[in-house]
């Protein structure tokens, strides 16, 4: 296909530099990778039309995925260079929204009165805004832009609705309806792998996509919408003639190279598809009025709540006073306490709340987004905000109402392993009290990890515990000294586990395990201690520390999806807890994060959120520690077993094969429908440029 001479920036190409993912060990990666950096629709069409015959392509964004779904056989198409050297394909577009919107659809929007940020908390008002973005835009960039609003863009939908329809209600800040726990991924990278929040009555982010613009192998491009939009009766989103006038032009290959398709089956197939259909150039996303969330966290045990998980009417899914709650996260400590009988669980709930202290200065905005420091940064294709993607987790100050606390030891735990120092100090104090004064504080870690009974078997371990105490004191000195700096948290925890759990003498082995349980209990209790605060939506939902250079390298992680009402979910969690108990007695351990989050069903055919109440079990650990990979391997084996039939997240480690996928996504149902749509876009599979080792392994192919 001959393309009309382009005004677009030439495509940057890099050959030879290792291609690696964010969580890979530094210095590792795919050697000799061929990478292109498009910045426009023209670039994408050119790449897809003119790649060498027989070569395969794959789009990548922030490199946050741990999955091989992101790996290309041959050529990587970077929508957002993770090294920030080449410009991203990350602009917010105004040519379709509002330029190509269907007039009737716009009129329907104009008849609505969106809620006001800081106004009443009527969550039944579902008026939404539309934003059209290139797919290389990162989530934190978009939530910052949405919060900034479109008031200062003359060509925006908000101004159009105000000036042409007399409705000023679309001015002001907007927000994602729901978010995952981090926002460093590209918007499309996150949603196309099924990324979700913990809002159990809301489907994942993918379900807020209103339209998408796909460039397929061969360079043909498609504007794809569902037949109708939510709440719009029978009205289509866009005006086809205007779309064709915008995209069916010579620089994009002409009118015969562009299709507009309104088809739920195709739309639902492309939404979550591991990049198999091609490169999605842009998406139109529904945004909701900006809102504030109250977050409440309480410490409990898995054993107390496991019987409630499968019952959506249970108190687990409401606030402690019984009022409605929108979010549920259960963080789990896999290491047991109470003489191996219990496991700590941090229970986080969220609900919509009035912003505090007022709508002009909601908590978290200054800390997580900040002011615009560059009105248009070429490298990100939009305004650069002071702290978007450049800040630590929002941390409320418990002593000053509506204020952020300064960076604490807890927050910097991953930047430097200082938190370990504090925990070891506390454990040393408790051990000394036990060994020297023969007393145990009732609210301390020892009282929690041990059980109290007639046997008192731990008293027989006084001598080995003295050995372990000396070891801890020596380790503390090391960590405090000059040699203790510059290590990753995983390295420190790995060394600690090795010294405590791998003792050759039986008594010391028991004492080391006991002290390891003390440390795990104390660490988890601090990380999941009681919390109550209110802040702007993204400051609550985005829990990622963008300054972290320790916890997020050399990470292994999976996420497994279950029907939350299926008791097999409980058995799966129980099995992980049992495995960890066993492996800790055998010198290995898991250091990381395990949690359950809940979400509603997605419309995407290959979305892992397949049930009205879906539970996602996430397990992420530091590979430096012996036992992390083993536990995750075991979790994968369980989830792939058809008795459990868990669905592995497309964006995390996912060794599923074609039989696994066919079993979970109904080879004669959703998967068959997905394949039919792939066949439609790829000419029966002939255009296989976006096939990859991963899609072949998982059967995401036409046949």
């Amino acid at each position, binding site marked *: 296909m001959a393309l009309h001479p382009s005004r677009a920036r030439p495509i940057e190409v890099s050959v030879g530099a290792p291609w690696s993912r964010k969580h890979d060990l530094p210095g590792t990666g795919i050697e000799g990778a061929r990478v292109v950096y498009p910045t426009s629709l023209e670039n994408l069409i050119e790449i897809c039309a003119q790649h060498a015959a027989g070569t395969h392509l794959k789009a990548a964004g922030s490199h946050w995925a741990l999955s091989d779904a992101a790996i290309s056989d041959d050529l990587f198409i970077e929508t957002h260079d993770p090294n920030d050297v080449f410009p991203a394909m990350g602009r917010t577009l105004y040519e379709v929204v509002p330029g190509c919107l269907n007039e009737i659809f716009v009129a329907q929007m104009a008849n609505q009165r969106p809620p006001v940020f800081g106004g009443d908390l009527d969550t039944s008002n579902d008026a939404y805004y539309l934003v059209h973005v290139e797919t290389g835009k990162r989530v934190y960039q978009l939530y910052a832009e949405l919060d900034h609003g479109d008031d200062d863009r003359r060509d925006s939908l908000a101004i159009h609705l105000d000036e042409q329809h007399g409705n000023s209600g679309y001015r002001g800040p907007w927000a994602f309806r729901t978010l995952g726990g981090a926002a460093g991924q590209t918007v499309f990278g996150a949603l196309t792998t099924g990324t979700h929040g913990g809002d159990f009555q809301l489907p994942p982010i993918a379900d807020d996509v209103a339209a998408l613009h796909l460039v397929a192998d061969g360079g043909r491009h498609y504007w794809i919408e569902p037949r109708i939009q939510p709440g719009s009766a029978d009205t289509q989103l866009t005006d086809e003639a205007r779309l064709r006038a915008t995209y069916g032009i010579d620089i994009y290959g002409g009118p015969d190279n562009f299709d507009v398709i309104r088809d739920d089956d195709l739309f639902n197939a492309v939404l979550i598809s591991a990049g198999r259909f091609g490169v999605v150039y842009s998406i139109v996303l529904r945004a909701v009025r900006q809102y504030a969330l109250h977050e409440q966290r309480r410490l409990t045990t898995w054993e107390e709540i496991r019987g409630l998980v499968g019952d959506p009417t249970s108190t687990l899914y409401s606030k402690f006073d019984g009022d409605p709650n929108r979010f549920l996260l259960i963080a789990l400590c896999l290491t047991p306490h109470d*003489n*191996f009988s219990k496991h700590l669980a941090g229970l986080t709930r969220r609900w919509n709340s009035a912003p505090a202290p007022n709508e002009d200065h909601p908590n978290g905005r200054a800390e997580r987004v900040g002011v615009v420091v560059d009105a248009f940064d070429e490298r990100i294709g939009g305004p650069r905000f002071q702290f978007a993607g450049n800040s630590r987790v929002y941390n409320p100050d418990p002593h000053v109402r509506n204020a952020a606390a300064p960076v604490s030891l807890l927050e910097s735990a991953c930047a430097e392993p200082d938190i370990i120092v504090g925990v070891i100090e506390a454990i040393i104090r408790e051990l000394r009290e*036990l060994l020297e004064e*023969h*007393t*145990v*504080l*009732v609210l301390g870690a*020892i*009282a929690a*990890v*041990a*059980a*109290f*009974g*007639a*046997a*008192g*078997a*731990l*008293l027989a371990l006084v001598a080995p515990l003295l050995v372990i105490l000396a070891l801890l004191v020596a380790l503390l000195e090391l960590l405090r000294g000059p040699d203790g700096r510059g290590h990753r948290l995983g390295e420190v925890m790995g060394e600690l586990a090795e010294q405590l759990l791998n003792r050759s003498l039986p008594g010391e082995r*028991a004492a080391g*395990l*006991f002290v390891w*349980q003390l440390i795990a209990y104390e660490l988890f209790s601090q990380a999941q201690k009681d919390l109550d605060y209110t802040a702007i939506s993204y400051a609550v939902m985005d829990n990622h520390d963008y300054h972290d250079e320790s916890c997020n390298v050399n990470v292994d992680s999976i996420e497994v999806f279950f029907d939350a009402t*299926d*008791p*097999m979910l*409980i*058995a*799966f969690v*129980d*099995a992980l807890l*049992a495995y960890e*108990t*066993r492996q800790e*007695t055998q010198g290995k351990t898991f250091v990381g994060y395990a949690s359950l989050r809940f979400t509603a069903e997605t419309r995407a055919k290959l979305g892992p959120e397949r049930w009205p109440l879906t539970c996602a079990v996430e397990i992420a650990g530091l590979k430096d520690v012996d036992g992390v990979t083993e536990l995750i391997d075991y979790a994968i*084996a*369980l989830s792939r*077993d*058809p*008795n459990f039939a868990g669905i592995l997240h497309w964006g995390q480690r996912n060794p599923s094969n074609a039989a696994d996928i066919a079993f979970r996504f109904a080879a004669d149902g959703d998967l068959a429908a997905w394949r039919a749509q792939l066949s439609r876009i790829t000419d029966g599979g002939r255009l296989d440029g976006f096939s990859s080792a991963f899609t072949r392994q998982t059967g995401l192919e036409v046949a």
Partner: protein
Amino acid sequence: MPEAFFGPWSIRVLDSHFPQRQRFEIRGSDGADGFYDGTPGSTLAVSGQRWTLAMSRREGGEWLPSALRRSAAAFTNADGFVVTVGAADSPPGTPGLDYDDMIVVLDSEDPALDPRRWSNPYDFTLPQRILRFD
């Protein structure tokens, strides 16, 4: 609706709360297909790539299929991977069913899933008298 299982399991009828006879049926197994008595205490070993468990009850001189539900699943180091299936004498989806007409417990015998019967050699107990409350 029968419940599907995969691999080797042992089945035990745990309890029964139905005045008439009951039975369970295995299909698709490696050599254990058939009907089995639903009296508490009945046991059976079943294996096969994919096999199904159904339950039925004697009513009005006929065998009628019972509604089934996995009522619980658990995994402990002491007992391994255990699934409990209950039967009710009404069509599936009928509200308020208690699924206790026949209760069957299935123990996984797959060593890959269930490295079972592990007993913990450690005892982390302390005497009550050393607790300090201040």
